[in-house]
């Protein structure tokens, strides 16, 4: 049709192809995927018409990965292999996680991030999150009928670098091209602002399952400018459930709970909390594994009483965010409520009193983040129509700093700086002939390094020996539009480039470090590659040895076909280990792990059976000896 080719000035001549992009709200309790279809942002449902995918992943004895409501249904029966609220563990060490004692998992301490031991093997929170994302990706591709160009993944505004990096890694692991990590409150503001054509100062109060964010934004003429943000990345609706659980235990005088009972009662606690949104009293009944019956009534009054401190805990960051933005509560034109927990009447009341106005609840608090993310994804993918354009200016939530003498932090980039942002800092030596220097990057507001999050440790080596104070080492910190940090270093005076060795503590992944080194210094590249290669070889050797030993011990657990596939994987790994390609070695290990997954599960089952029937095994042995 000729008509189609007549374009308005400024409009593209051909109606361009619509690129498939989605927004994903990867929540603590529930996750959602949304997209823009015919100019409308819509949440995509599963085959049963459900929008919310419970963020629950179960690794079944059959070797399947089940995500969502089916996994949720099994959580009390199979607590160790059913991971709920995995978002709380993203980018976190064991010591950072609250309520460890009541979480029914086999935690494993690992450098940087905690791991979870399941029947499907030891899982990092990144892998578990990737399993959730894979389901959403499949859902989206089925609904849209094609491969996705990319996705916008939302994160709590208050997530630090390690948590953001973990989220991005999870998305990559799930095969998603991350167009942007978007702060949840900002996503909500987009959904709200574009819908209502709002101008002025808005606050977004976002209380999710496990995280709390407050963002103060200025909306004007198509610009969403975050002025300040605050929050608590370990406070959410889950904590309200936890309080109810404690109340149940105390009131019913229960003995310390077994994992299954804890899960059951947490579910009951959540149901009671939700029931209290529309009622004055919630019944709580449960039958514990011991046969003991719990039969209680929780009144709204008692609920408000036991959760009062949690509500108050959200108002402190609100105050701080306002002060950071240089504003008073009355400057705020509207307060957008986001997250399922904002349905709690006591929260709406407290927020209303704090900002001296009725909070806005006209958008579904469960969906608004995904809707905003989809809208932004559509824009980023290049599907913008003329005039349909806006600009988003976000900030970093926590200051970035360096360790100085005496374990103190020196801020390099202050919190609430608009991103992307960079800052260069010069360092020098304090001893004559000093050739190396340690640099420790931390994130947080506290004065002591030990109270901040450690992001990375660098050692600058190969500084030419000079008089103390003569070398000039320029270290550049760059925070990109995803809020992620990268660091580069260079010795200025000598013309000789200093080498950098990076010891990752939190957040920074292998690849990021490699990228960091590539963009910086030549020697360092070799060094780091050598080390990474060496580490990969050692790890691969260990894996080979363990697998071979296991195969000798339990050859009967594999049928011929399975055994052949394992043997192929073993051979491949043995070959690549001789080479210089670290990625090939890693890939070989992944392949072997994949092929031996089921074998490992069976071995685990067998050893459990043996342990349970310990005596009989011994008896058999004695019998053999006779």
């Amino acid at each position: 049709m000729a008509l189609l080719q007549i374009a308005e000035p400024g409009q593209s001549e051909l109606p361009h192809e619509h690129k498939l992009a989605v927004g994903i709200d990867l929540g603590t309790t529930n996750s959602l995927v949304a997209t823009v279809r015919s100019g409308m942002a819509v949440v995509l449902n599963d085959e049963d018409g459900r929008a919310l995918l419970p963020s629950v992943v179960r690794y079944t004895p059959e070797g399947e990965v089940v995500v969502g409501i089916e996994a949720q249904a099994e959580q009390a029966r199979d607590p160790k292999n059913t991971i709920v609220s995995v978002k709380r563990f993203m980018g976190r060490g064991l010591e950072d996680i609250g309520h460890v004692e009541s979480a029914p998992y086999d935690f494993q301490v690992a450098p940087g991030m905690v791991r979870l031991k399941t029947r499907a093997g030891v899982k990092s929170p990144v892998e578990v999150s990737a399993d959730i994302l894979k389901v959403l990706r499949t859902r989206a591709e089925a609904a849209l009928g094609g491969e996705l160009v990319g996705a916008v993944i939302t994160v709590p505004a208050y997530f630090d670098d390690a948590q953001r990096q973990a989220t991005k890694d999870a998305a990559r692991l799930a095969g998603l091209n991350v167009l942007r990590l978007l702060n949840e409150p900002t996503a909500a503001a987009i959904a709200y602002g574009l819908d209502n054509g709002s101008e002025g100062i808005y606050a977004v109060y976002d209380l999710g399952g496990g995280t709390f964010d407050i963002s103060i934004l200025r909306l004007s003429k198509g610009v969403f400018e975050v002025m300040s943000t605050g929050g608590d990345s370990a406070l959410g609706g889950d904590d309200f459930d936890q309080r109810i659980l404690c109340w149940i235990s105390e009131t019913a005088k229960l003995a310390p709970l077994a994992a299954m009972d804890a899960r059951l009662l947490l579910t009951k606690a959540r149901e009671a909390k939700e029931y209290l949104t529309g009622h004055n009293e919630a019944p709580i009944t449960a039958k514990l594994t011991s046969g003991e019956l719990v039969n209680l009534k929780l009144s709204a009054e008692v609920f408000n009483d036991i959760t009062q401190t949690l509500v108050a805990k959200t108002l402190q960051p609100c105050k701080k965010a306002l002060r950071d933005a240089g504003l008073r509560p009355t400057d705020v034109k509207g307060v957008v409520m986001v997250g399922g927990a904002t349905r709690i009447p006591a929260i709406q009341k407290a927020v209303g009193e704090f900002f001296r106005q009725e909070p806005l609840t006209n958008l579904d608090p469960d969906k608004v983040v995904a809707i905003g993310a989809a809208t932004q994804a559509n824009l980023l993918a290049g599907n913008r129509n003329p005039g349909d354009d806006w600009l988003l200016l976000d900030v970093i939530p926590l200051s970035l700093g360096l360790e100085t003498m005496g374990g103190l932090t020196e801020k390099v980039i202050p919190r609430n700086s608009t991103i992307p942002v960079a800052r260069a800092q010069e360092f020098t030596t304090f001893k004559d002939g000093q050739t190396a220097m340690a640099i420790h990057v931390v994130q947080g507001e506290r004065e002591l390094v030990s109270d901040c999050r450690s992001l990375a440790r660098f050692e600058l080596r190969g500084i030419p020996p000079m008089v103390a104070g003569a070398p000039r080492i320029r270290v550049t910190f760059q925070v990109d539009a995803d809020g992620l940090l990268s660091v580069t270093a260079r010795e200025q005076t000598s013309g000789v480039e200093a080498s950098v060795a990076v010891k990752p503590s939190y957040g920074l992944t292998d690849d990021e470090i490699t990228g960091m080194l590539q963009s910086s210094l030549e020697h360092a590249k070799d060094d780091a590659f050598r080390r990474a290669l060496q580490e990969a070889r050692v790890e691969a050797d260990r894996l080979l040895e363990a697998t071979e030993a296991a195969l000798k011990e339990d050859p009967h657990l594999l049928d011929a076909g399975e055994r052949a596939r394992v043997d192929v994987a073993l051979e491949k790994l043995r070959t690549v280990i001789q080479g210089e390609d670290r990625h090939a070695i890693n890939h070989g290990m992944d392949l072997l792990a994949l092929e031996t997954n089921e074998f490992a599960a069976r071995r685990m089952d067998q050893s459990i059976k043996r342990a349970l029937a310990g005596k009989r095994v011994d008896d058999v042995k004695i019998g053999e000896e006779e």
Partner: protein
Amino acid sequence: MDFNADHFTLFGLPRVFNVDLGVLDARFREAQAQVHPDKFADASEADRRLSMQWATRVNEAYQALKKPLPRAQYLLHLAGQDVGAENNTAMPVDFLMEQMEWREAVQEARQAGQVDELEDLHFRLRDQIAERYAELGTLFDQQADYPAAADLTRRLMFLEKLQHDIDEALVALEDQ
């Protein structure tokens, strides 16, 4: 736009202390609308890196001009006038006395946990600071008296630091 231009030139603004903040805001947004990484999310790796560098540059310029103290420091820097932040801390005795009184008041209020008192100090100081910035505008834009502007800027550095400490004290009290 020229990557290496000074911040005023970058935004097409006259090199003055009393910048039109409305125009600055508008120019900043126009610039970001051109270079922000969100405009290049589907572009090549090289373009994305370039966009990030540009957006970083625009943010840096905006930060330097948005608030009066960094703006004054930047103007002095452009004029080649040393603000003497590090090597010229000798301030008049009466100014230092006044500072000590303020600091004692903050200290007392903090120890006594008097939030109202601290807030009162915050607003009183804010008014004082505003007055001096008005003065600074005259020194820069009418009189072009850079040594005097440097002197006043140095005082304002003390006052802003004091204001910052009052706010920190308030936060500390509220977090208790």
